[in-house]
């Protein structure tokens, strides 16, 4: 069939432009500046084309633009393929496609690009508001699809709705979408994607030098949320272990990497706490957990030091379930490990080493901790986010001169002195505390980042937090109270709602928003294989996934059946119009007598034909014909009454009718 792809109607173009704009919103945060220039150029050119001022760009212009855009993207992304570079490439492709949109085919390609751009946008932003914008974008794109398909050679017929059908299709599709969403098996990634976002994620550093934690302390970003399923720990128990820094080079503490990972260890049967964590992307592998943690999830490894690590760096929100005993497991330290945990660089911080030698040599870890805590609390040490600057022997300067610091300083100094005394020690970084939400979950933010120390007492690792000795408020009430007098809480974010927790209604509003986000995270963003299993088990009463597949197949069948039923119902309605069915009956009756009625005959003509062929019914047929004319064309009379009359008449057309006609004339006595 010779069919030229029709041109895109103005309404379709407008919808398409709006949809494209919507799809670009999630990408705005990272797009290089020149892409905005490109988009302005493209929109300008296309508008001029629309106004009839210029023509569509030729092949050479378009080809050049594609080559230039590709080069620009490769260059601006530092020749590294990242998610951002791929996104920018998609955006550039969509923008350049705008230049050629004139016929339906181009528009369809652009609409498909919009869908994919929106999907890619969800890789960058997944908040409720991002989803809402995405919803509008998809609606506009669907409407553009309808407009593009409905338009013909004369353009879009005026008065033909476009938004309404798009909306109704979207609404009608929701049930099946939900079925698929909840029941489609959540596979593990099929292959590890090389494309990852280069966006700097807020995370704990793999090393700790004085000042590092302080920078996190100025961020109110979400670190993770926890829902306790079993047990409710005290605030002082909320030490979220993330990393162990066991190597000290005189300036920074770092991970020696000698902490071996083992296969997933199940949590001990007597785990006091069972909890679910939804971790924000970190780009790292650590999974914060309480001490004595274990998990039965295959993707989670446990190290010898009792830390949990994810199989691969966490680039998307991650949900995991942990059980913790709340107690460090007993273990043996081999010589190599002992040496590692006692190692100190030569000649650093001589005053601290000297001070350590004043401690009794066979001091137990517990006694050492008590002594040091007493030292910190009885002397004029301060917990502050604005510590003095310390020089080369920073621990000496901190312990004996400045005496002002925050957790990193205290932890670093404590671990150093402990090692100098001869007690194996390591620095642990992670988070401490969090904010209990009225709904019962715990929100841990970046400013809850913390560092503390673990000391080896010969059997197990003992948690010792020197900061608690200096500033009990930090542990019991969090950072805000600890630095209240100082006024350094979130100084970089003057408008952060977290700074206005004192104002009651504002705080309630903030908590409501948090709650919304929490459920969004819990039920939408972190709906994974495990949650799916829970859902199948608890809500649908299914034991395993195979049953879920039956439900999936069953619901498809039911929906298909419903659609068929609707279809059948509609047809039935048409057939049921009484006049039409009477007409059909009349025609059938005629044909059963061998009176051929051509398909195109009107009802009146059919009656005339009957009158001709069946003389016995002649007068009645002519009468009915008159009634038909009166009812259908003059509008006088009831259609249903006429239908009844016709039906009664039709039933009288039977094999006897003809014979009667003849019999009336030639009636012979038997």
């Amino acid at each position, binding site marked *: 069939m010779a069919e030229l792809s029709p041109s895109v109607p103005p309404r379709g173009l407008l919808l398409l432009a709006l949809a494209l704009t919507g799809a670009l919103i999630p990408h705005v945060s990272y797009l290089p500046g020149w892409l905005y220039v490109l988009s302005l150029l493209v929109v300008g050119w296309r508008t001029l084309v629309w106004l009839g001022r210029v023509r569509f760009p030729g092949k050479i212009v378009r080809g050049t633009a594609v080559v230039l855009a590709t080069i620009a993207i490769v260059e601006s992304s530092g020749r590294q393929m990242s998610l951002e570079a791929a996104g920018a490439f998609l955006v550039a492709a969509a923008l350049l496609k705008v230049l050629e949109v004139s016929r339906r085919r181009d528009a369809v390609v652009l609409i498909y690009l919009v869908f994919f751009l929106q999907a890619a946008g969800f890789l960058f932003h997944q908040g409720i508001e991002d989803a809402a914008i995405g919803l509008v974008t998809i609606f506009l794109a669907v409407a553009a699809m309808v407009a593009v398909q*409905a338009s013909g050679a004369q353009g879009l017929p005026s008065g033909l709705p476009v938004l309404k059908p798009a909306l109704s299709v979207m609404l009608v599709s929701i049930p099946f979408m939900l079925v698929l969403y909840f029941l489609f098996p959540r596979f593990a990634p099929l292959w590890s994607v090389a494309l990852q976002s280069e966006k700097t994620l807020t995370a704990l550093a793999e090393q700790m030098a004085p000042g590092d934690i302080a920078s996190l302390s100025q961020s109110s970003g979400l670190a993770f949320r926890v829902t306790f399923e079993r047990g409710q720990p005290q605030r002082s128990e909320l030490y979220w272990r993330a990393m162990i820094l066991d190597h000290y080079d005189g300036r920074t503490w770092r991970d020696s990497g000698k902490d071996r990972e083992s296969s997933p260890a199940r949590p001990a049967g007597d785990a006091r706490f069972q909890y679910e964590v939804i971790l924000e992307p970190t780009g790292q592998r650590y999974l914060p957990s309480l001490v004595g943690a274990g998990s039965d999830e295959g993707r989670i490894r446990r190290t010898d030091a009792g830390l949990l690590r994810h199989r691969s760096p966490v680039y998307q929100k991650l949900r995991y379930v942990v059980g913790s005993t709340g107690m460090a497991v007993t273990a043996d330290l081999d010589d190599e490990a002992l040496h590692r945990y006692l190692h100190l660089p030569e000649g650093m911080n001589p005053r601290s080493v000297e001070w350590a030698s004043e401690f009794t040599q066979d001091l137990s870890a517990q006694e050492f901790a008590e002594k040091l805590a007493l030292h910190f609390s009885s002397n004029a040490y301060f917990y502050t986010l604005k510590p003095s600057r310390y020089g080369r022997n920073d621990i000496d300067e901190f312990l004996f001169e400045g005496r002002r610091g925050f957790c990193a300083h205290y932890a670093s100094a404590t671990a150093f002195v402990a090692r100098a005394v001869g007690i194996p020690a390591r620095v642990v970084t992670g988070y401490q505390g969090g904010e209990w939400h009225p709904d019962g979950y715990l929100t841990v933010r970046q400013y809850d980042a913390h560092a503390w120390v673990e000391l080896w007492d010969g059997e197990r690792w003992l948690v010792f937090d020197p900061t608690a000795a200096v500033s009990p408020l930090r542990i019991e009430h969090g950072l805000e109270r600890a630095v209240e007098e100082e006024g350094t809480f979130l100084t970089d974010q003057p408008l952060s709602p977290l700074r206005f927790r004192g104002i009651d209604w504002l705080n309630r509003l903030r908590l409501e928003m948090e709650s919304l986000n929490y459920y969004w995270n819990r039920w939408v963003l972190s709906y994974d294989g495990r949650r799916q299993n829970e859902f199948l088990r608890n809500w649908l009463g299914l034991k395993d996934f195979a049953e879920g597949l039956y439900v999936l197949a069953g619901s498809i069948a039911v929906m298909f059946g419903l659609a068929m039923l609707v*279809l059948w119902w509609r047809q039935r309605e048409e057939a049921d119009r009484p006049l039409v069915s009477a007409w059909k009956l009349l025609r059938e009756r005629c044909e059963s007598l061998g009176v051929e009625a051509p398909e195109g005959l009107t009802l009146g003509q059919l009656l005339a034909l009957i009158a*001709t062929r069946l003389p016995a019914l002649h007068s009645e047929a002519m009468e009915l014909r008159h009634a038909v004319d009166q009812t259908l064309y003059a509008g006088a009379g009831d259609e249903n009454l006429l239908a009844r009359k016709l039906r009664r008449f039709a039933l009288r057309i039977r094999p006897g009718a003809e014979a009667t006609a003849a019999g009336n004339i030639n009636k012979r006595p038997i």
Partner: protein
Amino acid sequence: MKRRWRSERFRRWLDRRVPPAAALALSHRNVFILPSAAGWVFALLLIAMLLTAINYQNSLVYALTFWLVSMSLASMWLTFRNLAGLHLRAGHAESCFAGERVFLPLRLSVKSGCRAGLLAGFPGDPVEQTTVVPGVSQDIRIPLTTRERGVLRPRRIKLTTRYPFGLFTAWSWVALEYPVVIYPRPEHLPLRLSSGAEDPEGESARGVGSDPEFSGIRDYRPGDSMKLIAWKHSAASDSLKSKEYETEEGGTCWLDWEALTGESTEYRLSVLTSWVLQAEEAGIRYGLSLPDVVIEPSRGEQHQTQCLRTLALWEGR
């Protein structure tokens, strides 16, 4: 050969399934549906999106993908529904000459719901696009290039739609009966006289276009227009009757089959057709003489039509 057999078999199957008629309502019996090319591309897009969702473990991408999947399934139903329930009725087509394009009127109507983006056409001929709204009959004329004289036996009209999303193509092969006669293709040959009795140049009858006069009732003849049927008289007797019209008498010439001896049948008919046109144009009274058929000389539109129809439908020899 095999292919031809197969297409023949398809045609017969189609004739059983969707028999030709003057009016037709589309339903699941006669509407077919398959994904369009754009639909297959869309399926690829959905697969790419699903892979993105799986590999990035992104719930929102999952949701978007599943929504689009669900919408495209719904669109399958909507595309089908865009054809189903459509009522089609063949209109009255005007005769034309073989080789010309005949325009077959098609009246589309629907009881409920708009039907947009409907394409109707014969394979190989231009396609008409239209939109039907409830309560308003939409008339379109579908062009068809004719090949041979006689009663038009049109192939099936292909009624297609991709509305609303273009992901699926729903179509129906519509067989509508058009009682239209295609006249032979006129083969121009200057008009000669076969009887030699009258000289057309000498004729003075110039009453071309005089109104036909009602002259009586005769038996219905196949091919008579619906307008000609006298329903009242038909009802009174036991067979169909037609009204007959005549024009006033005038000079005569005969257009004779025998004048073209030695030529092929179709050529002769074509030349006779051309002569009928020329004679009518010139305002001459003319009669047509074919083997088995003789039409008495007359003129006027009615007469011309009768002659052309006779030529179109002539089956002898």
